[in-house]
Each structure stands twice: as C-alpha cells, then as structure tokens.
C-alpha cells in the first residue's frame, strides 16, 4: 500500500484554514515549525505515547491509525473512547476553540474512518481544548459529513493536479506559520508599486 495516495486527516484542517496553506504544506512540501505547531506536536506526542488503557465500563485507545478506503483517508486519532457501546473519536487541541470550525471537520473525518473500520454509525465526537480543559461535542450531522466529503474531494484534486490555489490575504494570515514564505500581500503590493527611477 502506498500511503502517499491517501489524504491525511490533518490536511482537512489545513485546507479549510486556507487552501494555499494546504498546497504549501502537502504539495510543495514546505513546512517550518513555529511555536504553535511545535506545541501542538508535543501535545500530540504525549497523547500518542500513553498507549491503551481501560477504565470501568469505558474503554479507551490512544494513538490509533485510522483509515478509510472509500474516502482514501488516513490519519492518527488522539483518542478513541467507547462508553456503553457508543464509540467516538476525541481530538486534542492546544489552546481554545478557534474562530473557524475546522476542528469539527477533522473529527468528522475521523468518524468517517471509524465507521468504515467498525461497521457502525458514529453520531458524535469531541474536541478537547487543552487551554480550557473542555470537551466540546461535535455532532456528526449530514451537513458536516457533506462538508467533509466536499473538502476531501477538493484536497484530492489539489494533490493530483498540484495546481496552486492563490494566496488570499485575510486576518487568518497573521496567525499563519507560513506567512513569511507566502507573502500573501505581495501580488497587491507589486501591482501598486512604483519603482524609483
């Protein structure tokens, strides 16, 4: 099996944040850690090394690989829990809930994989925000599914063609670790620029 043909679950998050960022990371292979992503990685490492554990009527599996053939999707889940027969994924996030809902998409993608792997319907998942120590429920609604599937199609298209979505300057750019590589304002600035004679 060639993993590179699969879409990584993390790409969904990136794509919904900014398609150009997704292109830079997954097509152009550019990735420079800033402290946000580094913190994120450390947290993930911790979650990923805890291994498997059991507690009373609930079981938990940590750091498990998820995969879906149907959606050509692969990725690691931080935590899968089961309580009274209901199974759900929990995604760990540094910080608190952001302004955009890309974390929900990621949970939904994990749910799509779990459904295929376990042959059962997943109705909800959670995002755990380390800063607020809160779990936020994510209902896997039909609408969210459709959004996730549409995003997956867009990413798959991006990975196959390599066509660069243009950078578009928004307020998200300021928190983007690729800002200095991307220079999203360059096109506008060059257009208005008058070179000294």
């Amino acid at each position, binding site marked *: 099996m060639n993993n590179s043909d699969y879409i990584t679950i993390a790409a969904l998050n990136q794509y919904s944040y900014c398609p150009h960022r997704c292109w830079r990371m997954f097509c*152009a292979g550019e990735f420079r850690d800033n402290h946000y992503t580094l913190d994120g990685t450390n947290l993930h490492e911790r979650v990923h090394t805890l291994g498997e554990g059991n507690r009373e009527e609930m079981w938990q599996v940590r750091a498990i690989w998820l995969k879906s053939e149907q959606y050509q999707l692969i990725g690691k889940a931080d935590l899968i829990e089961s309580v009274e027969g209901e199974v759900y994924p929990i995604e760990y996030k540094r910080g608190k809930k952001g302004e955009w809902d890309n974390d929900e998409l990621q949970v939904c993608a994990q749910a799509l994989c779990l459904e295929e792997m376990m042959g059962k319907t997943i109705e909800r998942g959670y995002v755990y925000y380390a800063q607020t120590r809160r779990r936020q429920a994510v209902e896997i609604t039909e609408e969210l599914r459709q959004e996730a599937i549409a995003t997956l199609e867009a990413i798959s298209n991006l990975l196959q063609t390599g066509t660069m979505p243009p950078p578009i300057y928004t307020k998200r750019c300021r928190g983007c670790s690729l800002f200095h590589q991307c220079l999203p304002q360059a096109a506008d600035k060059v257009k208005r620029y008058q070179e000294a004679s």
Partner: protein
Amino acid sequence: MGTVYITQDDCFIGKTDERLNIRANKQKLLDVPLINIEGVVIMGRATVSPAVVTELLNRHIPLSFLTTTGRYLGRLEPELTKNIFVRKAQWQAAGETEKSLHLVRGFIRGKLKNYRTALLRKQRERTDGNFQTATDRLKQILSSLTSTATIDSLRGLEGAGSAAYFQCFDALIRSEGFRFEARRRRPPTDPVNALLSLGYSLLSHDIQSAVNIVGFDPYLGYLHVERYGRPSLALDLMEEFRPIVVDAMVLNAINNRIITPADFTTEPISNAVSLTPEALRTFLRLYEQKKQSNFTHPVMGKKCTYQESFEIQGRLMAKYLMEEIEQYPPLVLK
C-alpha cells in the same frame, strides 16, 4: 540570529548539547547556542566534528568554505525544500524566454539604478567630483534595457553600466592611501579590490542560502549561465544587492578609516592583497552589522533587515516565475 565566521586557522568546531563551540590551541574561542545560528562560514582551515556536520544538516544551517582571502571553495548543503513547483517554473524559464529576459532586465536594472543613486547622492554631497558623465551614461543604458531583446546584449549593457560606475569609484574614496583604478579579481592586488571581492564572496554565501530556502536550484541562472559548480542564480540575484550592501559598507569602512592601509598584507610573487587577521574580523563584523541593519522594503512597505530582504527578493522571484505576480521588482533603493 547571525552567521558565525571562523577565521582562525586550525580550529576545532565541536558541539556540546545544543551549542556550537570553537576551540583552537586548547582555548575556547566561541560558544554559541545553535538556535542562534543562521549560517557558518569557515575561512581557512578548520576541523569540523561529525556531530556538527549532522547537526548543521538537520537544522538546515548552511556551512560555506572560503579561503582566508575570501575566495569561495564550496559548501555543505542541507537538504533543499521539496518545492518542485518552484524548480519546475525555474527550469521552464531557462534560456532565452520571456520570463528569463524579464528577470535579467530586472537584475541589471536594479543594480544599475542603485549604482546611479549612489553616484547622484555623492554628487549632491560634494562639489568637486563630477559624476555627470557617468550618471548620464547609466541613465541612457537604463532606458535602453527595455528595448534590448537578447540576454547577451543585456549582458553587454550590464558590463557597460558597471564600467561607467567603476570609473567613478576612485572618486568615491575619500581616504588617504587608498586608490582604485579598475576592478581586479582573482587575486585582487590592491586593498580596495580585495575588500570588494571579500564582500561579494560573503554576500554570495548569504544569497545562495536565501535562494535555497525558497526552493530554487542555485546552479541554474539566467544572467549568469550554468558553469559547473557555480551558483548562477545566486549570482543573478546578487547583482541588485552589490551596490547597496557591499560597495556601501566597503566605502564606509575606508572613508571612516575603520580600515586603513596598514590593515593589509601583500603576498610575494602573486601580489595578492589580504587583510590582517584582526582587520578581517573587523570587516566581518561590519558586514554582519550591515546585514542586520533595517530599512523599509520599497515593495512590501515594511521594515526588514538586508538579510531578510535577500529572502524576500527570492520569494518575489519565485512568485514571478509561478505567475503569482506580473513582474519581478528588483530591490531599488532611493
């Protein structure tokens, strides 16, 4: 953040924990955290420990080898970014294409405009020197750039423009004991040429790093053609920076007598001129200061250091090649 220059012969460069340390004659010369290092330049002989080599590669810190006089020998190249799209665009524009012509014009225009600005400024500052002929000539060459349609003829214009500028260079020097007749390289046999050559060498190390970071193949250039082992694209991008970074700092060093004629030694037979070890350290410090000094980038409208501007220009070049922007704006300072 900065570049570590190692000028003392027979140093040992080792690593303890997250720090780079340099020793010679059983003495510790330097101990810096690796996190603060952007590049390492070894001038002369040094032993680099295998652990340092691995660490530099892992951290994407380039290491260049120069002779004590600053001639470029080669470098340890960290893995380049995997941006095949930038490379593809770079290769597609190779040869005599619309894009390569545009870029070559940009590099030359940037350099010549910066030359002209330097002369005009001097002209205003003083009454004795007369640069009128040269600035007129530069203006005339600049205006014929757009109508020149082959890279070879553009190269010719670049040569003519540089000649006009260097004819005035002696008049820019206002310090007893320094003269400039003409540009001489390999080896430079007078102090001014020695300083210029050394400065250009250091600059080329930095520009090559910038070009690498962006994802280019540094060996495929447009103005400079491929020759084995020559970082042609870095040399291309360097043109616009020569006057504003190197020439400016060399003139500053001489005219403010930070470097004096007594700081040079001449080799017998070859007549190659070089700095004394102590003056070399002074020069490197000046160069580092220049790189870290701030200015407002004319296109981006933001403050940046010269060091950062190397990468910005590289990124703008990539954007032009990938058709994100319609033209490449060379760094032209007012």
